[in-house]
């Protein structure tokens, strides 16, 4: 097969196989094995410690490119928090995060028109990067209000800080600037896999109380929530299992083919060297 044919065929096969997987198995979702449940269990334990009507400060700074990876887990988590009678307050320190936070907040209001506006507060976009984080930490520690003058949110009642990461100001910045200033209030995070090496040490050191950073951990958490609520929180699904399986199989075959082709092309050169 010519180089051009391979170059064109590979993406076509991948796209068609993924679409077929989605259509055949639209409802079967990614499932985690029992061994992958540690992160979800840790998350549940932290959320169980929340008192009713606690304020959860949601630092929403996801990234356009990777948000789709964590979106099902983030939505499940927001629904889970509201089901536990927590109040949410969104704040963003990056423009991308602000756009996504607004979209998620609008979505929540659209899904449940009876949801009281004060249960999903909006602190808006805070400019100033690390300095803005220090302002947030001081507001939590000193019991000050933040947000638009017409509708400020009192951060004194903050019971949990949730960081939705992916952008420049993610869990690392929150841990560095906020955790040392807010005392015993726990901080949890949901991040895409690309940030795993950066945030995993904070979980090991206890600076993050819980973390979901891989698709498998997210699937385990969604399973736990679906089991606990009997699915009453609505659509909590993730990617189609069959499509992901097809994609992995094609990836492995493609890598093996590339290896075989490379070995075949290097054989004549080796024989020529020997001669």
């Amino acid at each position: 097969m010519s180089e051009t044919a391979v170059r064109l065929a590979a993406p076509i096969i991948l796209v068609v196989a993924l679409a077929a997987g989605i259509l055949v198995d639209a409802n079967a979702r990614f499932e985690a094995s029992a061994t992958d449940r540690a992160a979800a269990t840790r998350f549940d334990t932290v959320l169980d410690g929340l008192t009713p009507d606690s304020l959860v400060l949601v630092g929403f700074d996801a990234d356009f490119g990777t948000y789709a990876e964590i979106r099902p887990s983030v939505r499940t988590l927001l629904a889970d928090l509201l089901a536990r009678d927590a109040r949410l307050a969104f704040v963003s320190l990056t423009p991308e995060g602000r756009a996504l936070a607004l979209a998620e907040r609008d979505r929540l209001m659209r899904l449940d028109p009876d949801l009281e506006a004060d249960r999903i507060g909006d602190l808006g976009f805070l400019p100033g990067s690390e300095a803005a984080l220090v302002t947030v930490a001081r507001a939590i520690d000193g019991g000050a209000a933040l947000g638009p003058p017409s509708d400020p949110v009192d951060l004194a009642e903050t019971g949990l800080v949730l960081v939705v990461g992916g952008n420049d100001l993610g869990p690392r910045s929150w841990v560095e600037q906020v955790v040392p200033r807010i005392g015993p209030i726990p901080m949890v995070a949901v991040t895409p896999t690309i940030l795993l090496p950066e945030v995993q040490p904070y979980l090991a050191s206890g600076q993050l109380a819980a973390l979901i950073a891989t698709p498998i951990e997210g699937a385990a958490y969604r399973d736990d929530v679906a089991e606990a609520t009997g699915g009453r929180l609505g659509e909590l699904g993730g990617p189609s299992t069959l499509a992901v399986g097809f994609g992995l199989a094609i990836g492995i075959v493609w890598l093996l083919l590339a290896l075989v082709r490379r070995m075949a092309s290097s054989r004549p050169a080796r024989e020529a060297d020997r001669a």
Partner: protein
Amino acid sequence: MSGFEGSTDADQAATLVAAVVTLIVFGGLFGERRLFGWTQHLFAGLITGYLVLLAITEVIVPRLVVPLAEDPVARPELWLGVGLLVTAAGAPWLPRLVAAVPVSIAIGGVAAFALGGAVVGTILPQLAASIARPGDDAVATVVSASAAIVSGLVLIGFVHGAPRGKVLAGASAAGRWLMLGGIGGWIGYLLLSRLVLMVDRITFLVVDWLGLGR
């Protein structure tokens, strides 16, 4: 499903535009670069417009214009900020010493927050966490000791250039292999996460846009 779209005409138009742009981006897989480049320009333009809107509606007007208009004397620090901004804008025409003031304050402020946070929030707690200590049970103690050993070996793996003996060279090689093992595991997860992103986009096209498999 992305779930961002509602059922109004504007939402359906947004879905259509998103689907067409997604198809064009997928065209890049098959070597179509011209339209792909056009979508990048579209994205850059939209982002620029959004940033300007965000700056005006969420920063400049509510945090600067409104407070100064309501009570010009109450917030002297805002006037100071405006002064620094004007100085930065007029830097090409001002003496170097004056033009350096706003830049120095900006760099100094960012560095102070970032470095202070890195020391207090990352370096010291991570050093403390990597010290081996007895745990609640034998397994926890072994895990703690192993983490300390791995941290030590990986740090030694970064030793370059200095003359060293067999033991240090062996520890350095072991540290590098451990680090490669860690990176390998992460890349495995990363491949899975990229696949999840692609499945999400195709789900958007097949289910949200074409309405198949609902």
